[in-house]
């Protein structure tokens, strides 16, 4: 699974993308965020408040309880601020 990070999530984690193979217990986006937080202190720092995070699966916005299914690309980021 390809992961993409944007804005301060990217900055705190220290990388913009990585490839991971989460265990089967990681079923939805919230599970994934929780599991990722254990990967490094940067991950922990970026992901410690899931309520401040938003996500997209295969380039579609999804709520954090969305199932990962066969997701190829999951993006995690703060609420958008364009325009």
């Amino acid at each position, binding site marked *: 699974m390809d992961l993409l990070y944007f804005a301060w999530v990217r900055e705190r984690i220290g990388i913009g993308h990585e490839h991971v193979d989460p265990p089967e217990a990681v079923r939805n986006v919230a599970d994934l965020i929780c599991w990722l937080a254990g990967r490094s202190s940067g991950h922990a720092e970026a992901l410690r408040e899931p309520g401040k995070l938003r996500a*997209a699966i295969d380039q579609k916005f999804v709520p954090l309880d969305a199932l990962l299914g066969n997701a190829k690309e999951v993006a995690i*980021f*703060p*609420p*958008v*601020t*364009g325009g």
Partner: protein
Amino acid sequence: MIRVSVDTAPIALSQEVAALEERGAGAVATFTGVVRGEGGVTALELEHYPGMTEAVLCDLAEAATERWGLLGVTIVHRVGRMTPGERIVFVGTAAGHRREALDACAYLIDRLKTDAPFWKREQRGDAAAWVEARESDSAAAGRWD
């Protein structure tokens, strides 16, 4: 005509408007967002989600075209670094009558604010801070549901 562009180059407003006017529509409405220097902001950096951004903007342009019967829609969003006075975003619509052009233009910028994956970082001298999302933007986008 649907034109969507996400680019680091400055937004060429005259050309964008001219292309809309050439659609033969009676009414052209535009919205332009400009970087403000207030609060000591010296620069703005725009990050986005390549691929998803363009897809979202195309979807919005198509939805507006269908809903208001537009003859032309242009959405141009700048990314990268820009300074006060420069254009961040341009939305333009061409329609037979003013109501359609104006409503569609308002819809597009309202929805772009909540639906398109852009993130703003404000630079104030050496300090940089990510802009926080505003509740009022969700409310504004919601009125088009």
